[in-house]
């Protein structure tokens, strides 16, 4: 797909998942969409990568790939630019929900779209994530059709003033969601029905 954006810099997605299998899978899916990808295996490492971890005890060895060098811990000025964060919900230590909250509380990163993934379809969980500001909630295993939903969120993040030719794609995504519509919006959740997948 040719880019309508004049600026050729690729979008950079930070993927957070404690499962090595799921990290490999999400990385491949994101790369097929030509995104630059950094994967980390915990919420703590995600915060460290973003420069949001307060304490300086980072002897942690990060497993990033194809990514720019991370910001130094304790450094307030961030070199790293992330356009979207996609995170697993169930992780030991800092959960995906904790990570979401911390990002939304951060002045620097609160406008970065955050997407949740979970193997479990729990309506109350999905609701609270969406209310906390998550843009999408994918049920695992994540598929290409899910990853295709990321692009409009990424494009919205890019400044539209400089590129007046970008089509503002808000048709099927309900960009402005009223609180009562946030519960189980069918367009966001893929349901499985006897191994048949209904993309609603």
């Amino acid at each position, binding site marked *: 797909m040719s880019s309508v954006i004049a600026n050729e810099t690729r979008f950079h997605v930070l993927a957070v998942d404690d499962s090595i*299998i799921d990290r490999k899978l999400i990385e*491949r899916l994101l790369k097929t969409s030509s995104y630059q990808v950094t994967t980390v295996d915990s919420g703590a490492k995600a915060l460290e990568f973003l420069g949001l971890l307060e304490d300086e005890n980072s002897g942690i060895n990060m497993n990033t790939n194809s990514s720019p060098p991370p910001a130094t811990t304790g450094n307030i000025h961030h070199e790293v630019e992330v356009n979207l964060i996609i995170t697993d919900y169930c992780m030991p230590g800092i959960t995906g929900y904790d990570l979401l909250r911390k990002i939304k509380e951060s002045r620097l990163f609160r406008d970065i779209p955050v997407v949740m993934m979970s*193997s479990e379809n729990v309506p109350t969980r999905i609701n609270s994530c969406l209310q906390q500001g998550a843009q999408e909630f994918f049920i695992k*295993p994540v598929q290409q059709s899910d990853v295709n939903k990321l692009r409009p969120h990424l494009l919205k993040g890019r400044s539209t003033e400089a590129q007046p030719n970008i089509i503002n794609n808000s048709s099927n995504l309900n960009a402005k969601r009223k609180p009562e519509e946030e519960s189980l919006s069918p367009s966001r959740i893929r349901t499985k029905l006897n191994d048949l997948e209904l993309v609603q």
Partner: protein
Amino acid sequence: MEVEQLQRSFLEYIAALFREGFLDGQFSQLQLLQDESNPDFVVEVVSLFFEDSERLLNDLTKALDQQNVDFKRIDAHVHQLKGSSSSIGAHRVKNACITFRNFCDERNVEACLRCLQEVKQEYLLAKTKLEALFRLEQQIVAAGGAIPILDEFS
């Protein structure tokens, strides 16, 4: 063996794996992610699954062998195994994990031991069959052929 014959054997074998429920649609998704720039993607992911699963199964065996069984910990391990088997399309392994988790909730050690046996069995079956599938693939490639994609909807 002729390339076409090998390809036919491959298609029959993989069709049977789907039919018998060893693999589900997620495995096809993995195959779709494999291309010239990532020619070993499926083998790589499945290999990670094998390593990860064997570690988890060992941990589960030890955990169920304790004086005071930590069901929360066991549930966490089974949850992980359920997730990874689901991610690669190992359908029967996934289902065995779902059953296992139900018995964890009941805190029933005997039942959990039986579930663990069941999961181990399904895992070994999946591993054997996937390894056989990959060997067939290697034979096709060695004979100069391309690995055919099974059309699930035919």
